[in-house]
């Protein structure tokens, strides 16, 4: 069953077409990668999916519901959450508070209930604290919960971003370069965590990734974008040998390294 369907999505900024007529179907329970050279429109595509940008044309259907043009908070409430390419934590908040913010759409306390401190609100706060602790344990950060987010080491910050996204109880999580800037050990841990998101929590995962080893290891399907256009889609083995993909990477100069990784 398709969880997310992007139909002919186009996003233009003035004269620049960042995403050009991209169609993509993501099956529930799969791990899918979106790859492509720098500036291929991957992050813009994520921003369109999560409602930060409205598509110029095309439609997005999530879980059987048309979400084209909805506000980001509405889309999050429906079950899509994300992380960012350059980490965007709430730096001056504690680790635990970061996760609690992620839970915003799942909490119901209204202004007056909060002011009167009704039992329902207090119960909700308690429950959300417990849930936040569970999520922190899941990403192995519970011992750091009272630290400021900014004081965490890099790898921990990445994991906190995932925990924060999980707090919204998403059905689909979009990870924007989850292993960028990590050393091999951290990358291996992150890869394992991504796998656990799907295997243990049943969340569908879409990731943008440059590290071909990660992409080839965990993706079940891969979509390749270049200059905003989808140039290939398929199983990892198909993508590895696809001439258009190799050409796209070679054309960007950084390709030699990339191809080596694709080949290796």
């Amino acid at each position, binding site marked *: 069953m398709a969880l997310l369907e992007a139909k002919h999505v186009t996003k233009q900024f003035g004269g620049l077409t960042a995403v050009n007529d991209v169609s993509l179907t993501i099956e529930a329970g799969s791990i899918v990668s979106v790859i492509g050279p720098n500036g291929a429109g991957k992050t813009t595509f994520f921003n369109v999916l999560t409602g930060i940008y409205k598509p110029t044309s095309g439609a997005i259907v999530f879980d059987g519901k048309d979400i084209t043009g909805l506000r980001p908070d509405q889309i999050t409430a429906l079950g899509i959450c994300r992380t960012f390419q350059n980490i965007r934590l709430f730096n001056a908040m504690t680790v635990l508070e970061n996760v609690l913010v992620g839970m915003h759409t799942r909490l119901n306390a209204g202004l007056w209930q909060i002011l009167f401190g009704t039992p329902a*609100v207090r119960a909700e*706060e308690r429950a959300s604290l417990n849930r936040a602790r569970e999520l922190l344990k899941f990403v192995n950060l519970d011992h750091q919960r009272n630290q400021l987010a900014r004081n965490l080491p890099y790898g921990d910050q990445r994991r906190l971003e995932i925990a924060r996204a999980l707090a919204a109880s998403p059905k689909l999580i979009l990870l924007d370069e989850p292993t960028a800037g990590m050393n091999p050990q951290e990358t*291996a841990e992150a890869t394992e965590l991504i796998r656990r998101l799907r295997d243990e929590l049943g969340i569908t995962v879409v990731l943008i990734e440059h590290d071909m080893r990660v992409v080839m290891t965990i993706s079940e399907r891969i979509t390749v974008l270049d200059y905003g256009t989808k140039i290939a889609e398929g199983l990892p083995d198909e993508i590895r040998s696809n001439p258009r993909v190799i050409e796209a990477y070679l054309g960007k100069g950084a390709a030699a390294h990339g191809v080596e990784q694709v080949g290796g």
Partner: protein
Amino acid sequence: MTADNRQVGQSASLWGQLRAMAGRGPAPYVLTLAYAAIVSALLLLNPTTGLGTDMVVVLFLLLMFVIYRAPTMLAFKLTLGTILLAVVMPVFGVLNPFYIDVVTKAGMFAALALGLNVVVGFAGLLDLGYVAFFAVGAYLWGIFSTPQISNIVPGMEPLHGSWFWLFLAIGLAVGAFFGVLLGLPVLRLRGDYLAIVTLGLGEVIRVLATNLDRPINITNGAQGIKDVGRPPLFIEPLFQSLGITISRLQEYQLYFYFLVLLVLALTVFVVHRLNDSRIGRAWTAIREDETAAIAMGIPLVRMKLLAFAVGASFAGTMGVIFSALQTFINPPTFDLLRSIGILSMVILGGMGSIPGTMLGAVIVTLLDLQLLPRIANELAALQRRGVPIPSWFDPAQYQRLLFGLLLVIMMIFRPEGLLPEDRRRQELHHDEPEPAPEAKTSPAVPESAQSVEG
């Protein structure tokens, strides 16, 4: 090993030892009580007006923050605080009517600063036009309780003072409404742009107040509104039954003192509740990173408007009280400098911190109304007595210089404010204890690495 453990272990400095000693066992109770007793005695036994009493009043108000911070039982804090604020201060106020006015003003500005703190400190929306909402509340009651109202609604009599109570609530609602109204055009703006637009909107309200005497005389223009109505004194019979006879003026002073105290307490309660909820967390998230906050599902428009509305509502109510307290309002009272003054209270005290903001308000108000003029007076007196201070130096003209210097020094040496938000204190002092970077230093090769690669 947690950072807390290490901090306690390493506080070997003299100051640290003293603090540790003062915080153990019955020591905090004894010390706080002694402080309270000395200050109360000084106030009640020597209620003269002068620099000495000024200082004692400052110490008295600082005592409130000492009580707040002292490691004692909540019941002790509440009892002591209530005795000091509800008995000692009013009695002193009867003995010396000058000071209670200043304390009332300090309370009023504390509530205003708390309101602005919601917008600036919590949600990170730099608002330079905050005093506009204060003006709206003040003019609301000013117009309805004076003959001005008959210019708008022909034939309508000024409202009786007993309507004042209802207008406290109406001021709250109207303030919130204006908060949303002025919040709408700035929703998409951040940082400097937001500051400039709010500055402009604040000026718009002041200019409207100055010029809305034509074609219909609503605000009475630059002359302002005088003889604003005051609420009836329901405490008068109470005083008479207790056999206390004080002048009407003093009764009003006490009345407004308690009213401001009550509204301030309510404000603290509301702000505290909100800050500790999903709403407060959403505000902080917006302050920290708007884009990430949106992506986490926080409805940006609703939360920003809520911050503006909550902040403005307190200003609206305080405006109603202010106009009744002063019985005279005019546009210059609500100029840009006043907005900036309130902002400096928030920043001086500690942005985002409830006790900090109140401390900032108290200190700035006391400096403004009492200490700086007094120091200037004393200097002038010395000058007259022949102390060699150059004659071109007019202390009264230079008193603001001291205030400016104080702000500069504060921002250089303690940018997070006097009593910063706990989180913010950690944020601005990176050089102090850092958490152990455990994950980075462990060189162990994980078993999972091989299995993933293979």
